[in-house]
């Protein structure tokens, strides 16, 4: 058991930091420090391409597909340095962390050739179409219909919470391809071009006044017959595999973002005197401890070589960070006091901490609500009986 990184790793860390800091103090200075998902989309697409050119886009991928075949340790280091340098979040994180790995695992050689290099170069931006208005956390309740017609899939239905759909080029869609099927059967996984007449994207305005999420409507939207990943009807298995990719190295980068948020709270508490309150001090200490434990939980998760055993750290990670961050938003407001409830802008645009308070209410909902997470933990982690589905 070891925590420290090797000398080689530390050299690699310096290399990452140098390159990233160079970019952020040079050509991409204008996007440094952006935290909102929706800000400066065009410049951030250019940033994806710059990452791709320099082969920093998908360092964990095999070299043949545009990656560097980096070790886990190196991926961790890159994610940390990325966040430390104040680089904004990846607008193609779905392509890099979900679509790419799925294609790597389940795609045909042609699909790999078609998509992987292009994702790695930052030329193809992906978004995901999973949730539907009447099937929030319940993917098996998907109704969006796909039928094969004249060598094409024709898709009709509606997806919701399709984050980044207003930026993306492609969407992968979980659709019901067997008429009359229900539950997890008869689902198919399709990759579709987003910019086509049959697809309309509408922003969903949220509690914080911003629109990170979208609704996406499919009206006789089309894609070629070979756009499916895996076999027809195999969508459930793919979707489940894909969700499994959601945990991993990127969590450490995410945590660096959390670190920045907590540091800003600590700064604010020092400035306005809240740091003198023993009650606030306890809460800040708890937040600090929680964040550290996320880090070491993630390291345990990444160090776990025995994938046959259920990894408790991985299984509990989503609810842990989501609950932690929601609490952080409340702490932020309690540190700021009423000053956190007003903004200098005219447009209901919020500084980082009040925005954290508002947006973090979504953290415990998307990607599986806290309630769903507890079901999963109890069922997969502890072998408790599964929650029965109704037949309504």
């Amino acid at each position, binding site marked *: 058991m070891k925590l420290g990184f090797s000398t080689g790793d530390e050299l690699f860390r310096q290399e990452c930091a140098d390159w990233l800091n160079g970019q952020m103090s040079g050509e991409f200075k204008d996007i440094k420090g952006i935290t909102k998902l929706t800000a400066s989309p065009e410049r951030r697409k250019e940033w994806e391409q710059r990452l791709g050119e320099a082969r920093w886009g998908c360092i964990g991928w095999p070299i043949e597909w545009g990656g560097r075949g980096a070790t886990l340790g190196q991926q961790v280091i890159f994610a940390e340095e990325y966040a430390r340098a104040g680089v904004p979040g990846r607008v193609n994180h779905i392509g890099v962390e979900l679509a790419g790995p799925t294609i790597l695992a389940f795609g045909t050689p042609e699909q790999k050739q078609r998509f992987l290099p292009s994702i790695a170069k930052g030329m193809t931006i992906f978004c995901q179409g999973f949730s539907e208005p009447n099937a929030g*956390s319940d993917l098996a*309740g998907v109704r969006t219909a796909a039928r094969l017609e004249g060598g094409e899939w024709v898709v009709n239905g509606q997806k919701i919470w399709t984050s980044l759909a207003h930026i993306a080029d492609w969407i992968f869609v979980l659709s019901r391809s067997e008429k009359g099927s229900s539950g997890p059967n008869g689902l198919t996984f399709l990759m579709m071009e987003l910019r086509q007449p049959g697809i309309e994207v509408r922003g969903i305005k*949220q509690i914080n006044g911003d629109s990170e999420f979208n609704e996406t409507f499919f009206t006789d939207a089309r894609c070629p017959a070979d756009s499916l990943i895996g076999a027809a009807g195999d969508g459930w298995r793919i979707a489940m595999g894909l969700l499994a990719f959601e945990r991993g190295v990127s969590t450490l980068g995410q945590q660096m973002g959390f670190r920045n948020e907590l540091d800003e709270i600590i700064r604010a508490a020092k400035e306005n005197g809240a740091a003198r*309150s023993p009650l606030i001090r306890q809460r800040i200490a708890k937040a600090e401890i929680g964040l550290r434990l996320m880090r070491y939980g993630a390291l345990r998760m990444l160090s776990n070589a025995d994938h046959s055993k259920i990894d408790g750290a991985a299984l509990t990670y989503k609810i842990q960070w989501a609950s932690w961050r929601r609490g952080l938003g409340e702490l932020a407001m309690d540190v700021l006091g009423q000053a956190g*409830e007003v*903004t200098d802008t005219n447009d209901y645009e919020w500084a980082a901490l009040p925005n954290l308070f508002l947006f973090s*209410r979504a953290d415990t*909902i998307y990607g599986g609500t806290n309630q769903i997470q507890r079901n999963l933990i109890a069922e997969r982690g502890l072998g408790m009986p599964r929650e029965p589905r*109704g037949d309504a």
Partner: protein
Amino acid sequence: MEFAFTSEQKMIAETARVFFTENATRERTRQAMACDGVDYALWASFCQELGFSAIGIPENLGGAGLGLVEMAIIAEAAGAQVAAFPMFGSLVLCAQAIAAGGGAGQREDLLPRLMSGETIAAYGHAATLVDDGNGLSGEAAFVAHGASARIFVVTGNNGAWIVKADAPGVSIAQLTTMDQTRPYARVVLSGVVGEPLAQPGKAIAAAQRAGFVAIAAEALGGAQACLDRTVAYARERIQFGRSIGSFQAYKHRLADMMIEIEQARSAVYWAACATDEGAVDAELAAHAAKSFAADTYFMCAGNMIQLHGGIGFTWEHDAHLFFKRARALQSMLGNGDWHREQVAAMIFGEMA
């Protein structure tokens, strides 16, 4: 045992409920949110047609002769709809301050105008407020509905004054506020001629007393509305092929909301009643009610979002109105930690 509404109080509660449900609609509230957070039509009919604006003011001052219990009933009903109107600043804080601490002339001049709704007043506190002979100077930072007010009651550490919004030296900046149904303004005074209230101590005490109880009552109404609306949603929403309300995790969260709300209800009417009766524990009750009910509201509004899933954090859905109001009530007039510290000081006999 008469710790229950009288039939007259029941009638007031029902009338108020119907009034706010019919008038403080989501469409009208959202229109008000886009401007200064005042639904002027609501305000006019509340003051002039319904006749509840005089509640809490003694009859000899032209009021309705009813007490804090009745005021709490109204605030509860308004809170249930997150009504966008300036009752809290104008009728609760300012009118109570003037009624309790104003001179005869001030009462006669101002109270009728406030009760009719003709004049909106707002209440601001500025610890640094001084009258150095050249007028009042200082800054009140978070004045609820301050940009809609024609007069202010401003309080400092050694006095309370009436200040006209259009008096020379007054500058008012409306602030973009998280709770758009009750936006704050920053009110800066530089050498302003104010009219001192005759008994500032009494005025401030009365405003606080009423303010704590009204906030608590509003929070109670809001919390109950969060529960009611979530229960209604639970009845119709199907997930995993089952009514979502059939999931025990869901049910138990609703139960937890009800458990807190029932206590908040006891707190609000204990505080209101104890104040009206001049009971020895009235002050403790007001601190208890303010802190407990505001926390209950925040908990319920947070749960409302969570239990609605994705739709719950959209702008379109009303959940965020409750959530933001709940947050505002937590931090107004002292946060929960401060109120509980007052209670602790009383418990340990550290206060007179």
